[in-house]
């Protein structure tokens, strides 16, 4: 049914806070299965765009369509239920809960146990809980977090926390996974691992991935297409090779480093 429709369609999104312009006329479309990157210096509006798509910030102008239906204006929980999950630049784990429980929360969509069944601990309830735990452990395994399952999420090392957030987001069963600076604070070896991991989960879960990242070489390697944001405006859009040669991009980056 969605044959010709792009998965996600961002149309002329603008966000203004009073006199401050965070985004201006950003437009692009995501094809199913691609890894799409958003790059640009700090303050370019990348996270703001994520917030608009995921329903945390209202757009001043423009719309977002998801598989043909409007997404703008929906609250975050409904956005997630439509199949979009995200991670946060500043990590928002449930730090007082265990690693396993964090992922279990993500799996809540599939937990259809009845209230009574849960209270009475019926056979079907217990079976279901066991199944969910199994799936959670599988996800943790994918992200190399199995040994840490019982620890409070707040006790984890930074890199592990980043991966946990990804695991939790994936647990919600999305079609589109939005990652906000997943490589922040990682060394080159970890960045390579991350690249490989993202490629793997894209294949394994048949995902479309939208990434925000600073580290341009990483994005050039990983992404099928890129959009470049500069002071809230979209100055380039296309495959990495084309973007790399785009005069506007060179101007923006070189112009900055000349200062």
């Amino acid at each position, binding site marked *: 049914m969605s044959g010709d429709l792009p998965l996600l369609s961002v149309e002329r999104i603008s966000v203004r806070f009073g006199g401050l312009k965070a985004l201006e006329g950003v437009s692009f479309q995501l094809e199913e299965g691609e890894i799409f990157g958003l790059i640009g210096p700090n303050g370019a509006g990348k996270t703001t765009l994520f917030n608009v798509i*995921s329903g*945390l910030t209202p757009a001043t102008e423009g719309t977002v369509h998801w598989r043909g239906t409007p997404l703008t204006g929906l*609250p*975050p*929980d409904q*956005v*997630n*239920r439509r199949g979009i*999950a*995200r991670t*946060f630049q500043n990590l*928002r*784990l*449930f*730090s*007082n*809960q*265990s690693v*396993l*429980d964090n992922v*279990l*929360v*993500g799996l*809540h*969509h599939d*937990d259809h*146990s009845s*209230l009574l069944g*849960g*209270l009475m*601990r019926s056979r079907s309830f217990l079976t279901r*809980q066991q199944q969910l*735990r199994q799936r959670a*452990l599988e996800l943790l395994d994918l992200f190399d977090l199995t040994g840490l*399952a*019982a620890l409070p999420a707040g006790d984890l090392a930074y890199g592990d926390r980043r991966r946990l957030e990804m695991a*939790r*987001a994936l647990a*919600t069963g999305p079609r589109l996974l939005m990652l906000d600076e997943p490589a922040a604070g990682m060394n080159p070896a970890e960045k390579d691992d991350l690249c490989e991991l993202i490629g793997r989960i894209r294949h394994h879960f048949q995902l479309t991935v939208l990434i925000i990242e600073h580290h341009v070489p990483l994005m050039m390697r990983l992404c099928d297409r890129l959009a470049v944001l500069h002071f809230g405006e979209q100055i380039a859009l296309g495959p990495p090779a084309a973007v790399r040669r785009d005069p506007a991009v060179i101007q923006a980056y070189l112009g900055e480093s000349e200062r």
Partner: protein
Amino acid sequence: METGLDMTLPVQMVLGALLGLSVYLPLASGQLSLATPGFYAIGGYCAALLSTGWPALGGELPTFPLPSLLLELVLGGGLAGLIALLIGRPVLRLQGIYLAIATIALVEILRVLNLNLPFTGGALGIFAIPQPFNDPAGYLAAASLLLALACWLCQRLETMRLGRAQAAVRDDELAARSMGIDTARVKLTSFVLSAVIAGVTGVLSAHFLNTWNAKQGSFDASITTLAFVVFGGSRTWLGPVLGGLVLTALPELLRPIGDLRLVVYGLVILVGPVLFPQGLITPERLKQWRQLLPQRGRPRRAEP
């Protein structure tokens, strides 16, 4: 009415523990609600009015029939829950201190209404409330049953989807929403459950205390019940139960020192948060204590 300690204090302690649980539930979803005394008062008035005003329930009999008590519990708890459902949605949109203040206002509005409405008996309230039990032991049994039920509910919730969602909302509401959790509904459920427990406690208390007036649902009660949770521990349901039991007993146990006892009570509330920010019972401490127990054959719950 009372002649020394006998069973009266334990009954009050158990009722206190129930109120502690009522305050705890919204807090478990990250909501600081001080509305418990209001719902407690509603439950009490329900019981007081029904038992004194509706002869069919058997208020004239020497002992108030247990089925009537049961009916009152259902009606009182139900009414409290219904009101919570109605006002919950708009009120729970408020965050942090604003929610706390809104619930304080709610309790005060209810108190003034209870003082002035024609059928609530004004400042004197309603008295000569029929007694289902002839001595405190009966009340203790009933209250303990209610407490056990409430504790069981809280314990079960923790391993269910709702309990996990509550904890998620408490830790980070924004993240919880982004994971697809209908946080408004989670918060509302906690609020309604809290109201039902408070209402049910009110029903039993009204019979126990024999009279009921607007003073039962006052800001003072908001403070004391909140102290149960803060003192006992706000991260697990055992905390408010312990807090309710201990802090209700405290003023009585301190009676020998006379007028200073309320000062000591105040000092406990003053110093408690400074010394024990998470309260006495925390999940970590529970884990430590559990490890101190001798190992048993079968584990109660499979740990990862």
